[in-house]
């Protein structure tokens, strides 16, 4: 069985023909950069061939769904686990109307780091199609094998939602299996927690020095969907414009707290960051605390209620 791009196309076409949706959002090739796939929307059944589904579809779609459906457009979304959770984050935040999206679940085999593949094995991009062999992606018909251990995208390493959840329909394509690379999502968090406090600060301080405060992490994040970001406001000036350790601290502290209990762990923030700031280590810390302190199971799955908008009478009281 191949990776079944035709099945994806067929379903997308059917949705458009049946007018269940006005458009379908997926990915397309970049005409100039062979390793790049960018989000792409097709409005006509005849154009579903423009969509692509291969190991290089790195970008998350959820945040785009938000912008595209704002005007009432009904959108079919090719949704991997991370995309679906992101869309649900936006639905629970009342930023996407449930009836405006049709989630076409794509079981995901994990995505490859296109740049690295291009550097090490450019001929892989000649493939006509792909198969998922668990530990490898295999190109058809060339038979080139790409080991996931070497090429998996950082954000896919710790993924626990390869199987798309809460979708309207799940496509019977390869992928969606258990992720062998994800043994302990909180490993990095634990490592940091175990460092002595001054070294912990030094770790973050090093990253504060690199952070450009370009806000790319916020722009791609499905949980950062406010009409007006408090960090942009002048009155009150939650965050001063001056860039220093203290203000960088406040920026990252506020961002982490605002997504606490809401982050879907799609890893888009860190992927989008031009300096590679370990935003995931902040997000997962919040997740871990939601689990440890409030017993939230699977804190990355969006719920109608948020842990920080709730309380329990027997919440821990560890301030003594």
């Amino acid at each position, binding site marked *: 069985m191949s990776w079944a791009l035709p099945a994806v196309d067929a379903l997308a076409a059917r949705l458009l023909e049946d007018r269940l949706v006005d458009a379908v959002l997926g990915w397309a090739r970049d005409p100039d950069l062979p390793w790049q796939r960018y989000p792409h929307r097709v409005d006509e059944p005849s154009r579903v061939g423009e969509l692509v589904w291969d190991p290089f579809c790195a970008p998350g779609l959820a945040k785009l769904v938000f912008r595209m459906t704002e005007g009432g457009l009904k959108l079919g979304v090719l949704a991997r686990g991370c995309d679906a959770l992101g869309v649900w984050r936006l639905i629970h935040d009342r930023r996407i109307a449930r009836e405006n999206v049709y989630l076409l679940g794509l079981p995901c085999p994990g995505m490859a780091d296109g740049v690295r593949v291009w550097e090490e094995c450019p001929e892989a991009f000649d493939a006509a199609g792909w198969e998922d062999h668990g530990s490898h992606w295999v190109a058809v018909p060339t038979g080139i094998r790409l080991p996931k251990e070497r090429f998996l995208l950082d954000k896919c390493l710790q993924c626990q939602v390869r199987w798309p959840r809460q979708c309207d329909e799940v496509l019977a394509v390869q992928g969606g299996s258990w992720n062998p690379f994800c043994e302990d999502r909180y490993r990095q968090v634990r490592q940091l927690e175990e460092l002595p406090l001054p070294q912990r600060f030094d770790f973050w301080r090093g990253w504060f020095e690199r952070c450009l405060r370009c806000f790319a992490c916020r722009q791609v994040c499905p949980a950062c969907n406010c009409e*007006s970001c408090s960090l942009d406001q002048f009155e*009150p000036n*939650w965050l001063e414009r001056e860039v220093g350790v203290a203000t960088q601290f406040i920026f990252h502290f506020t961002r982490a707290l605002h997504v606490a209990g809401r982050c879907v762990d799609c890893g888009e923030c860190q992927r989008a960051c031009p300096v590679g700031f370990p935003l995931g280590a902040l997000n997962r810390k919040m997740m871990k605390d939601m689990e440890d302190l409030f017993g939230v199971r699977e804190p990355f799955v969006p719920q109608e209620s948020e842990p920080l908008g709730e309380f329990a009478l027997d919440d821990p009281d560890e301030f003594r």
Partner: protein
Amino acid sequence: MKRVGVFLCWCGSNIAGVVDMDRLQAEVERMPGVVHVEQNKYTCSDPGQESIRRAIREHRLQRVVVAACSPRMHERTFRAMMRTAGLNPYLLEMANLREHCSWVHRDIDEATAKAVDLVRRAVFKVRLARPLQSGKVPITRRALVLGGGIAGIQAALDLADFGIPVVLVESSPSLGGRMAQLDKTFPTLDCSSCILTPKMVEVATHPSIRLLTYSEVESVEGYVGNFKVLVRRKARSVDEQRCTGCGECLSKCPAKVPSEFDLGLGTRGAIYVPFPQAVPNVPVIDRQSCLYFTRGRCRICQRACPAGAIDYQQEDRLESYEVGAIVVATGYDQFDPAAYGEYAYRASPNVITGLEFERLVSSTGPTGGRILTPGGGREPQRVVFIKCVGSRDEQRGASYCSKTCCMYVAKQAILLKEKLPRCEVYVFYMDVRAAGKDYEEFYLRAREMGVQYVRGRVARVFPHGDRLRIRAEDTLIGRRLELEADLVVLASAMVPRPDARQVARKLGIAANQHGFFSEAHPKLRPVETHTAGIFLAGAAQGPKDIPDSVAQAGAAASKAAALLSRQEMETEPVVAEVNEHWCSGCLRCARVCPYNAISEREIRVRTAAGVRTKTVATVNPGLCQGCGACAVACRDGAMNLAGFADQQVLAEVDALCL
């Protein structure tokens, strides 16, 4: 920049004795926006206030800081002064130099440095203050009373006597509630019906009261002064207008089912009035047991009715009422002692609850007032009472004391002794709590009449032939006891009505861990709820006896009347505000609001792509109490609290950390 005046109060030597006022003044004069600083011996005095007014005029002050005592002491005083000086009262800020500084610190340098910070905080905050106006909301002059027991009856009558129109909603077919089921009342032993029935009749005939029995509240919307209540009037199958209450139908009905009013000790027909003194005296058809409704045949009552009042086609009707205040008096239920398997409540008909005993001893009860064992129908030779069944027992019942049991057990024991002087009466108790006027004397009277009070818990009750065997321990003398009795009465706890939590949710009021409705403050606001305009009366709030219920009902009625005596109401200006431009419409704020003060609304906004509608949060200032939880829940910073705005708190932080 706003022109700020700062008034430094010595409070005699209370402040000036510790804080170096001149050094403080020199520092304050350098603070941004401060155009005038002066010192007063007693700023709260008339001359002190007058000097502020003068300074406001002379220096054209726009903001005022009074650095004196705690705002909890004199903020009201100085706000009133602001008004007389022509400034908005909310353009004032106090710095607490007395309670938080001079009274707790001794070192002059430290205290002075702290005083400088405290004044700077006030200056920074007041510079960002905006004038706040209290809004006005109109008030609908009508009250809803929920529940037709003694508390509801009393509240309705008191309200009606204030001249306020009242809608009284009772879910059962008749007024009366639990009190109607009682035989006599402690400590006077007057007959419960004799004092209750006239009140029931008064309710039914009062021109200001609209009585809706066999009805339930479906939904409540709105807020203080402006509630919209939807009432479901359940189909009675009897036309209330036509029915004359002759009772012809009652005796003819062939169905026999256990009577709820007699707690299953007696029977009633499918068409019935719960008890002879019911108000209104209009029967109701219980469609579950009516032959016509279940099998399609019978119609005997229809034929028997001389007034043609039987209406099998009647359907539930929904009626809507607008009211300004609500009194919740939905009463209590009795704890089901089945949880105490060792007391054989399910196993023996001769083990009954206190309320069942009331029916057994009542002259309108199934035995006509003769005390007979439900199992054998004979007069008991010995009766055992067991107290605290379900009360004061966190494991199997509730942690609280049900408050009334000690007294009603004493009453029932006395009634037994009066009716059956030769009957032996034992009472097993943990403690006797007889706090209340004439209560202790009443309890002692029971003892004097020969009632045996035994301190200790009963371990087991088990049927033994046609009697009951009781195994217990007298803990005062540490002796095991075993005795036989014909009747065991369990003083089962008072618990909330099973639907109490649903009622709380409908009304938007809180209930405690047991399900009793929560008052706004246990001491200072005992009849109000956290939701403005909703008041509590009777045992729905917690176990209560009749005098307490009546007193609370009167208090709730007068609170409601005070509210409804006004045409409109001023709202507190310290309320949450929405910046609609920033609001994302996620409504997280609404979820944390304890007062249901936040709802959503659609607005039209102009964007680059043209005009579109968006959902935003909107605050009802009539409901908002100004806690600010919503402002923190809001990530956009679109929700803010007037008087404690984000920018103000941040400025205060900055001021203190300089």
